[in-house]
């Protein structure tokens, strides 16, 4: 048992580290990207159709690559950013690049839920585009955004299991090394249980928060 914990504990920390940092940057990049996708539409508050088209195109391309392939494909870019191509930190870059377009689409879908009448009301009160984004669009869909973030975290957790490929470590890597290559079933099972618990925890926390802030 203690041998299991000794194995699981550092892997778990690696996973949490990868997921946490990736989620942070994914939100940082994906939220504005998703908002820009909505507001630059030709019928929205800052119509810039060409920008909208380009962004949409790039996002679609990125999203059509399987994570494993994306991770290898962007190795030169990863080296440029973090100085190395292996290790936990190196795994974070592809995680962010894979999750950001996904999250941007999630944000886009959420923000589009805002009733246009409410946006018009804000316009009629003389709100600037920035004010509309910060004081209307985001607050109005916050519960849905929280659920979107929840899904994104779980997605990133899933991707992070593949990070073993670039020596990223983490729970997925552990399961492959011990459970698969060394036939240690107990490690495999413990990892799976841990991942299931993690996902459940994230989802139920997300649901709870969304429920509390939902005023509709």
């Amino acid at each position, binding site marked *: 048992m203690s041998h299991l914990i000794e194995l699981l504990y550092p892997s778990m920390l690696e996973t949490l580290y990868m997921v946490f940092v990736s989620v942070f940057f994914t939100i940082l990049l994906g939220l504005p990207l998703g908002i820009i996708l909505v507001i630059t539409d030709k019928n929205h508050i800052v119509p810039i159709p060409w920008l909208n088209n380009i962004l949409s195109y790039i996002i679609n391309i990125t999203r059509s690559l399987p994570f494993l392939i994306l991770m290898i494909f962007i190795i030169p870019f990863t080296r440029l950013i973090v100085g190395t191509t292996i290790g936990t930190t190196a795994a974070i870059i592809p995680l962010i690049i894979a999750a950001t377009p996904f999250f941007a689409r999630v944000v886009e879908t959420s923000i589009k839920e805002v*009733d246009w*009448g*409410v946006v*018009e*009301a*804000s*316009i*009629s*009160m*003389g*709100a*600037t585009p920035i*004010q509309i984004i910060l*004081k*209307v669009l985001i*607050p*109005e869909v*916050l519960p849905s955004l929280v659920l979107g973030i929840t899904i994104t975290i779980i997605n990133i957790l899933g991707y992070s299991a593949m990070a073993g490929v670039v020596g990223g470590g983490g729970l997925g890597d552990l399961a492959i090394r011990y459970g698969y290559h060394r036939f240690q079933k107990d490690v495999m099972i413990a990892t799976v249980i841990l991942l299931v618990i993690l996902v459940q925890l994230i989802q139920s926390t997300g649901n709870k928060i969304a429920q509390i*802030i939902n*005023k*509709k």
Partner: protein
Amino acid sequence: MIEIKNLSKIYSKSNHKVVALKNINLSIAKGDIYGIIGLSGAGKSSLIRCINRLEEPTDGDIWINGVNIVKLENKELRTARKNISMIFQNFNLFSSKTVFENIAFPLRLIKTPNSIIKEKVNELLKLVELTDKANVYPAQLSGGQKQRVGIARSLASDPDVLLCDEATSALDPKTTKQILSLLKNINEKLGLTIVIITHEMEVIKEICNRVAILEDGCIVEEGPTLDVFTSPESYVTRNLINQDQLLPNEYLKGKVLTLSFTEKSVGEPIISRIVKKFNVEINILYGKIEYIQHKPIGKLTVQINVNDDVLKNIILFSEKNHVQVEVLNQ
């Protein structure tokens, strides 16, 4: 106050065009409660939404307090909009904000200090009688309460003009009356100019001192509500006014007239005078009393069998005695 000059609005979608407004000219005075009525698709929403440029006018000018709204750039337009508030059919409240924060919103946009916001919002809550709902979210309010929040929110920036786009269409008749009397009250208390778009004659009758009738993107008639009601000039207007008194066709034989009795003519035995003076028989088909801005107008629809010359004289005689005549059938 508001001068609309040669306003046109054309919606162009790829290859086909919809002309929603054709060369509209309107003049709305300070303190007016100005009603614009028309059937669905007449262009009412297009017209009112051009006034604060939620829709871009295709052509024409809109002067408000000496400023041509059509010519303003983004920043100046935003400033001007603080002076032109709007309330909506679907209320358009912020579901994520409390009643208090909804009303405070226009003040937060201009970074008003909290102490002033508190004072102002509480004052507005009192005005719309929702003080006890300050910390409630819109989802917990009835339609009438939501619209009162909408009204309070629209007043927060101390506007000169209030635009109402079908503001009572989602409400039941009783709640509609309450909202209209609130608007009237605000109009009197704050001297606010109110523009009301509606397809309901009741709304116009209840509070508008002037009315314009819109048909197919054109104004077909315009004037003081009382005048338009007692002597409508256009067919469209007559239809709108008489929505509730469609006579069966078999009664529309001979000359059918509707006589409108206003304050000046009640108490005069006009009908019996006509009978004596012209030696005719009058058959009364329908009668009712309407209230226009709380002033009673008696309406009597009658049938007379006379020739055109006598009819003309009867009309002249009636109008001399302050009875307006509308010929329904001749």
